Every structure is written in C-alpha cells, then in structure tokens.
C-alpha cells in the first residue's frame, strides 16, 4: 500500500451520511471508486454522521486494496467525527503501526 501522504490530492468525496442507513450506497461508492481511480483516496467530511458500519467498510476496502495490489487511504488524517468514532469503537487503543499510519497518518518512530 502506498503512503497516503505521498498520493496526489484528489480524493473521493464521501457524503455527509456515513451511517448504517446509507451503508449500502457507501459500499457501492467505494466499489465505483476502485473501478475508476487509482489510488483511491477518501475525503471524509469532518462533521459526517459516522457509525461503525463505515469503519467496517473502510477496513473492508483496505483488505480489498491489499488483495488487489491497489493503493487506498484517507486523504487527510482522521479528525472530527471520524476520530471520535474510532475512539468510541475501540480502534485507537491497540493500533498497530500500519493502522496508525492509515488512520492517523502517523509513522512509527524508529
């Protein structure tokens, strides 16, 4: 997977609603992004309505990218509602270096 920070700044802008109510549509959007762009960079609105279903979709996209040798990442490090949802869901507590780099764009200090 490429380092997200080195990827040119053109992202797939996601809708405001990233909750289970809209999960199927977001999944389709991610599919479409993988078919039409490379690398796939997600632009998550700071005040988006986010729940666990979206975090799962992003994790699923990470696996998809790894399996298919594609580049995938967040255009910006997680902030706002995305960051608070990650915290609430317990994603932050035990992050691997790769997870930290993916979600927070922080590289492990050697």
């Amino acid at each position, binding site marked *: 997977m490429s380092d997200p920070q080195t990827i040119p700044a053109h992202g797939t802008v996601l809708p405001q609603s990233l909750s289970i109510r809209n999960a*199927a549509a977001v999944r389709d959007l991610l599919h479409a992004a993988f078919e039409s762009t490379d690398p796939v960079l997600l632009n998550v609105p700071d005040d988006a309505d986010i729940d666990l279903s979206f975090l799962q979709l992003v994790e*699923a996209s990470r696996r998809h990218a790894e399996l298919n040798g594609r580049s995938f990442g967040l255009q910006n490090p997680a902030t706002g509602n995305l960051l608070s949802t990650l915290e609430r869901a317990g994603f932050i507590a035990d992050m691997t270096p790769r997870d930290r780099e993916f979600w927070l764009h922080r590289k492990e200090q050697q």
Partner: protein
Amino acid sequence: MTTLDPIQVFRTEAAELFEQIEGGLLDLLHDLSNQDQIDAVFRGLHTLKGSGAMFGFEALAAFTHHCETAFDRVRKGEVPASAELVACVLAAQDHMKALVDRPNGDHAEEGDRLLAELQAAVGGQGGIGTVVTPPLAASAPAKAENAATTWKLSFRLPSNAMANGTNPLGLLDELRELGTCEIKADVSKVPGLNQIEPADLYVSWQVTLTTEQPRSAIDDVFIFVMDEMELQIEQQSSPTPAAGIKATDTPTAPAAEKTVTEPPAKAEASPAAVAETKNGKAAENVRVPAERLDELMDRVGELVIAQSRLSQLAGSSVDIQLRAVSEDVERLSGELRDTMMVLRMVPVTQLFSRFRRLVHDLARETGKMIELEFEGETTEVDKTVIERLADPLVHLVRNSIDHGLELPDERIAAGKDRAGRVLLSARQAGGEVIITIKDDGRGINRERVRAKAEASGLVQPGQQLMDQELLQLIFQPGFSTAAQVTNLSGRGVGMDVVKKTVEALRGVIDIRSEPGRGSEISLRIPLTLAIIDGLLVRVGSGNYVIPLSAVEECLELSLEEDLRSRGRSFISLRDSLVPYLRLRDLFRTGTAPDRYQKVVVISTGDERVGLVVDQIIGDHQTVIKSMSKLHHDVVTFSGATILGDGSVALILDVMHLINVGQQQEAQLRAAG
C-alpha cells in the same frame, strides 16, 4: 426479487415491538408488581427508542425515551406501577404508532399532552418530559458499590445486530460509564469489499473494565442482546476496598489476583455452548416478507397447473416412461403444495392478541367489567384468512360487549358474576377452522329482532321463521336493535360487512343465543384460500369446480325422476326433502340433459342443496384465480381455475347457490 427497504424493515420491527409492549402492559394490569412484565415493557420501549433513532425516526426516539424513563424508574422501584401509568403508556403507544406512520406529521401538541399525563402518573417527579434528546447510554445503576473490581470482557454481537437496531457504539459507551475502560476492537473478521454485507457486524471487542458497580450492571448493558450474543466475562481482580473505606469494613479479605470465569448471568452452560445453542436457535427461523411468500405461492400454483397438463398428456400417451415421470412430478408437486400450505399457516394468536387492547379500551368506555379468554390460540390458519378476519372479529367482539354484556350491577341482579366473560376460541375441523366468539351476557332479544325486521320490511308481519333464520337477520344491512346509537355499535353498520367478508372467504356464520345466558357466534372458514380440493363437474359443454369441502354426497338423477319432480325440484334424502337446482337451467346452456344426470349435494352447516350436473369428472386440485374487476358483480362464481388442457373452469360460489336453493324452497313451500 426486490431488496428490502430499511424503513419498511423498521416499521415491521416496530409493529412487533408495539405488540410486545402492549401485551406486557395489559399483562401488567393483572399484577402490577410483576417484575418480569415491567422488564419486558422496559426492554420493548428501549429497543423501540434505539431502533427508531438508528433509522432516523428522531421524534419517535425522543418521545419513547420519556416512556422508557418512566418504566426505568418503575423497574428500579423508584415509583410503583399503577393502572394510571399503564393507561398513559398505552395511550402514548398510540402516539408512537402515529410517529412511525407519519414521522413528518404535526404531533407536538398531542405529544406534550401525553407527556404531561405521563409525568402526573409517575408522581410528577424526576425527569419525565424534561429530556429532549435520548442519551447515548442508559443511566448507571443508582446504587454503586464501594469496591472496585477489574473485569475482562470478550464479546461478539450477532451479525444482524446493527440491522436490527442495536448500536454497538452505544453499548461501548454504556460500559465506559461504569468505570475505567480500555476497549480494543478486533477487526480481523471484516471481509473484503466484495464480500462485505454493509449492514452486518463483523467487529468484536475485548474490554478491560475496572468498576465499583456489581457484575449485574455489566450484564444490564447487554440485556437486550444477551440471548443472541457471545459474551465471556472474567473477573481479573476481586473487589478491593475503595479509597476512604477501611480494610476492616470488608469482613472477608479477598484472595489476591484470583481469576474467576463466570458465565453470563442468564446462562447456565458455558459461553461457547451458549453461543452455539443460540446460533442454532437463530438458524431455526428466517423472516420472509409476506409478498415473497405470495410470489412463491403463485409459482406453486402455476406448477400445479402445468403438472395437471402433464398428467393429462401422459394419460393419453402409451409411453410408459412419460407416465412414470408424470407420476413423479404429480407426487412432488403435491408435496410441494402441502409444504407451501404449511408455510402460509400462522397461529390465530396473532389475531386474538389484538383484542386484548380493544377489550381493555371498551371496558373503560362502557364501565363494564370484562374478562377476555382465549382457547386454541395455537390453531393455524392461512395468513390471508387471518388478515381478512381481523375487521369482522372486531365488529363481533364490539357487538358482543356493547349489546351482550350487562353492566356489573345488572349482572349481580341477574345472579351472575360482576365481570362479563368473552371467550375467543379457535379449533380446526377437517379443512375448516371454526372461530367462535362467545359471551355470557343477556343474549339476543328475539322479540326485538323480529319487531325491527318487520318494521324495516325484512320480513312480513307474522311470517314463520326458523330460529336460525331469525337470528341471522342481525347480519342484514342496516339492521340494528340497539336502542341507542353509541360509538361502539348500534348504527347497523358492521354486521352485514362481517357476513360479506366471511362469505367472501367461503365461510359461514352460525349463531346461537340463549336469553339471559349469552350468545355464541361461530365463523367456519376454510383453512386456506389459495389452492383447494375441488370436484370437477360438467354442465352442458362447460366444466365447473365445486369446493370439495362443501360436498356431502353424489346421487344419480334419472331422466324419469327429473321429469317426475319437475316443478317441485326436491329430492328425498333419508326422509328429508332437499331442494335442488338444475345448473343447466341456471347457466342457460341450451343443451339437452344427459340421460343419467347427477345430483351433487352441498351443505353449509344445516343448509343443504342439490346441484344437478351432467357429469362428475372427478376430484381436482384447484388453484384459485380471482375474477377480474369486470366480473365483480358476478355472484354465482367465486373464482376461476385453469385446467390441465389450458381451458378455464369457473368455481361455484357454494354460499350463494345454497341461498338460491333455500329461497326456491321457501317460495315453493309458500305456494303450497
């Protein structure tokens, strides 16, 4: 196949929750201290609130939150359950239904009024109506214990938890409220983008929680999903005295760093075994939208017709292999049909349970004391029958209570119990289900029925009527004996609709009544409406189907007998005269009768009529097709079916033909 609309899914779930809440409330009325019912109502309200919020019904979630808060206080023993509170929440539930049906409607005024009543019902204290937005987490238990314990939790919610309205983040928030919490998500089970079901839950969690709350507080967090989830709770450290509490305050010093594994409070087996059992249990039931069942039923119907054609072709063929295959297909389609029929069957308890609320409300409106009893609720009937019987039964129960049951003082004066009894029962008899509404009220006043019928011209003054005929007059349009028009009954609207609906279901109504002892109305309805066993007959050049359940026997009618009885049209059947109808004349076939015609005697209860046909072809699995809108005025036929050769056979409306036969008999008797 269409995808499920999530909003519709929520509405379906909400309808079930409303039933659960309503049932719990009504049960609670019998025993206001019943903690199980209080918990059940609370759980229903909590789930409704959570699901509502998840699916965007914010107004519903906010309103339901207040009712939930009220029941939470009852649950915790802060306020007692009372009949007034139950009545308030029942009324509030109607409001919630409106919020589900019309989320964008103007409900504010009604909501405020109900909340004021709710506040008064819980003693006007503590939180009801003061919170606008539901909190993310339930409030922590009121009494904390003074010793901190560290627990290690490992849990996985059912995969459909989110789709069913559970918010995992809310559960995690509730755990955080209990104490110091470290939460680690395990995302290893999340599949790739091509495999993921967006609404399914794949993440599981490991939580280390240090809390002064008891173990039951942790179980409470999962109270709504406990039955379907995998949950393991290990006590990492035993309770230790909290700051400010002297060691001597704890009589037994806990052993240091002991690890105790406890199963979830409700489980007796190991968590893994519980999970296995629960998974197995979950797999036993699949929720399928009714329209998909109807689609499947249509396909089975088409298959039965195609099989019928195949049998006909094979029957006229000398190819033994074709015949063998045809027999196999016939057997399999018969089995498939039977299986399909079972799938469509639902217990009548779904129908009966609706009446608990109705009777509760009617008792309050009329001031009557009513005991509603059920019998045979597990009897199963085709789902279409259940749906279409709901309104007629409402009319019958209303009439039974309004006209039949007396006020408590009248009952005492008549030597009866203060509380009137209404019994709703169901039982299967052959291919029919018999649903009975029985009360122990004053019975039908026959003199008043006759007087009313004579006044409205339904019968001639002094006309002789059998008792059953007299009682059946109450089902005539516009007929009412109620001295006063109330909002329950007495407008003469309803009972004729009951009769029409029951007859449209190919059913009949029997009525019995004893003055001073009560009345009993029985609806005899076919178990299923989609496919019936029929008797295929020929009249002239046309084929017709007579529902086999109505056929009593078949006789031969020779030409001589036919000629001899001309003008009378009665056959003697074991010492009783049975009127008969010549279908050839009725259908104006213009053909000469066969030399040996047949009489098919059909009956509905006590009424019998013979139908003269040219030939009895045999039994026939009949897939019922409704008549088109162009034929909605046709009364002699209840539907049509397609025969094996592709031709159409009309299905005779047994009720109508019996009425015609009885009228003919009455005319002939009157003519002497």
